[in-house]
């Protein structure tokens, strides 16, 4: 029998049901399921649980402070995101959002590597569904690129865990530091690093997030990268390469973000930059740094979600998605402006917000470990974050020259979701003591000291002076910026042309001729046989069945009207019934 109910089980079971029996009112059920996930997560006690078996393989759950900390924020943010999307009448976005959250919670609790791998792949699948739900040509192409990148990540993880299983008989997710230098170590590290979007493997992130719908990008910004951060903290704490890569990543993201004109693409680059702080924290590896990475991941999900939600609300209200076309938005909707600035001040780490109490732990641990390179790069990234989001984006969207556009009102549920996220940002910033109690490792850190507060504010005041001096130089222009995906897109294009222009004609001309006799003799005969079978047996059945249809009651006969969706619904019900029966027999 199962020891506990896994917190993501209701969401995993109800998600398909909501999909197949979708009505707009079922959005409330999805919201309630996310809330149930959060409640079940709160009720969990630390320990290792099992008992759920399929074909003799036992799935294991590990509940400890680290996994609980991440699961809290995943389930909480799933609730906020679904609340934000409550008015959407689209079965894909609602269910993919719910299942995406369930998979992220699953990654946080998975202890055996197989279930970890399954949830890891689930993250990629539901992310692709969220991207493609925009139903545009651009989104289609991005989702194809997203699949290709994440297939590499998933396969390298799969190969890694198979090698661990066979060569080292390791079946649980532990700290793999003692395996350093072996092939599975690097395979698994590669998978995590791709999902954490460490440059030069980062291009899928700013490619996909802005091309999704505004609701899709709210879910997307929260789960994939942060579950990779969780995995890095769990499996590879203290890998010095990660510390350097993370610091460079924080800087890289900020540089690209300052070049951007598309607000969601800009925020995507800031996601890369902020995840860089966490990767650096995981790489530094002291208890304080790991705490900093976890705390920053928690805060980051909330404020980045808030920023994506407020930018999404602007896009919803105006229909414009270019910063240079916006301006003076504060006069159209002061509330959204307020939410945006709470998020913006949080991401740059201004005192009294959650960014201040979480980001400074990582930076402090870098200086406590005497690593000036990481310290300076992270400080530069903080400068760039304040410079870009609060000053550049805040000035050019909300103030500055007013451009001609109209803004329609935003639904109540979007407002409520943004209010909850803003309140969380400020509450965490006001009461860091309570927040630190949930951290996975013991911590002795006081963010609110005179030197720290004045230092941060002095830093930001210096940045403000420079910003207004150079503002016209870095004003948003209608430009796009090529990222590292240019390399693999170009290479694939060359390969594609080679295949179409050289290989295909060659195959038709020579190889095709070679197989012609085989096809003529063998396959044509096979086809004829099958054709006979089809014509003789199946057609006769087809003819007879309608003749007997009168003997079936009309209600049952109506079920077989050829609607594929109805068949799938019956199929799902049957699967659930079988599943429940199998639970009883355990």
């Amino acid at each position, binding site marked *: 029998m199962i020891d506990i109910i896994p917190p993501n089980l209701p969401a995993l079971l109800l998600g398909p049901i909501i999909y197949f029996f979708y009505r707009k009112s079922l959005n409330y059920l999805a919201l309630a399921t996310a809330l149930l996930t959060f409640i079940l997560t709160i009720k969990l006690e630390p320990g290792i649980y099992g008992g759920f078996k399929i074909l003799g393989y036992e799935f294991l759950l590990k509940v400890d402070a680290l996994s609980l900390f991440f699961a809290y924020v995943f389930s909480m943010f799933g609730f906020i995101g679904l609340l934000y999307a409550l008015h959407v009448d689209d079965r894909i976005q609602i269910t993919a959002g719910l299942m995406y959250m369930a998979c992220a919670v699953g990654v946080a609790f998975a202890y055996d590597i197989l279930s970890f791998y399954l949830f890891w792949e689930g993250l990629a699948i539901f992310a692709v569904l969220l991207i493609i739900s925009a139903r545009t040509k651009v989104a289609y192409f991005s989702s194809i690129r997203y699949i290709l990148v994440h297939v590499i990540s998933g396969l390298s993880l799969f190969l890694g865990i198979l090698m661990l299983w066979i060569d080292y008989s390791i079946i649980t997710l532990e700290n793999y530091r003692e395996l350093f230098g072996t092939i599975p170590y690097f395979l698994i590290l590669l998978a995590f690093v791709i999902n954490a979007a460490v440059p030069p493997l980062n291009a899928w992130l700013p490619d996909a997030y802005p091309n999704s719908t505004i609701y899709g990008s709210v879910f997307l910004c929260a789960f994939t990268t942060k579950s990779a951060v969780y995995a890095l903290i769990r499996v590879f704490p203290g890998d010095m390469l990660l510390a350097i890569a993370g610091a460079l990543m924080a800087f890289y993201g900020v540089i690209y973000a300052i070049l951007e004109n598309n607000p969601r693409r800009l925020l995507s680059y800031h996601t890369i930059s902020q995840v860089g702080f966490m990767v650096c924290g995981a790489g530094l590896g002291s208890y304080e740094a790991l705490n900093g990475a976890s705390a920053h991941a928690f805060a980051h999900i909330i404020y980045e979600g808030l920023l994506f939600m407020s930018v999404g609300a602007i896009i919803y209200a105006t229909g414009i998605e270019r910063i240079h076309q916006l301006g003076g938005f504060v006069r159209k909707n002061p509330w959204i402006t307020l939410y945006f600035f709470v998020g913006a001040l949080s991401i740059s780490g201004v005192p009294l917000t959650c960014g201040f109490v979480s980001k400074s732990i990582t930076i402090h641990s870098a200086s406590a470990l005497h690593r000036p390179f990481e310290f300076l790069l992270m400080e530069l990234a903080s400068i760039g974050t304040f410079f870009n989001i609060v000053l550049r984006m805040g000035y050019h969207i909300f103030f500055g020259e007013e451009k001609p556009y109209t803004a329609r009102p935003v639904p109540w549920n979007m407002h409520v979701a943004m209010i909850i996220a803003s309140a969380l940002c400020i509450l965490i910033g006001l009461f860091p003591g309570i927040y630190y109690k949930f951290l996975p490792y013991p911590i002795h850190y006081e963010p609110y000291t005179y030197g720290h507060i004045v230092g941060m504010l*002095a830093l930001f*005041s210096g940045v403000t*002076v420079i910003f207004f001096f150079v503002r016209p130089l870095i004003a948003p222009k209608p430009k796009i910026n090529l990222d590292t995906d240019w390399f693999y897109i170009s290479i694939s294009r060359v390969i594609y042309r080679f295949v179409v222009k050289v290989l295909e004609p060659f195959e038709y001309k020579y190889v095709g001729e070679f197989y012609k006799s085989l096809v003529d003799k063998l396959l044509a005969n096979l086809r004829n046989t099958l054709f006979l079978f089809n014509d003789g047996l199946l057609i006769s059945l087809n003819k007879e069945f309608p003749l007997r249809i009168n003997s079936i009651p009309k209600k049952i006969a109506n079920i077989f009207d050829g609607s594929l969706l109805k068949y799938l619904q019956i199929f799902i019900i049957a699967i659930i019934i079988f599943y429940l029966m199998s639970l009883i027999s355990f």
Partner: protein
Amino acid sequence: MWTKEDKKNISLSLVLFIIFLVLSIVGYFFFPKEKHFSFEKIPFFEGLFGLVGALFLTLVVKITGKLVSRKEEDYDRYYTS
């Protein structure tokens, strides 16, 4: 180019900067904090770092922009064809 508003904002931010200059010099003498690197011992290090860092970032961004920025109309040529 620079507008009238920018000039007002520059003078306002300079006032802020000077306020924090004074505050951090007060902190330097009365509220000493632990310092881990030699460069942190410079009085008002954070404010100066903010100035220099923001200038440095602008420079890097302008150079990177020259290398990677393309016209927006070219999006389809790079990404969806």
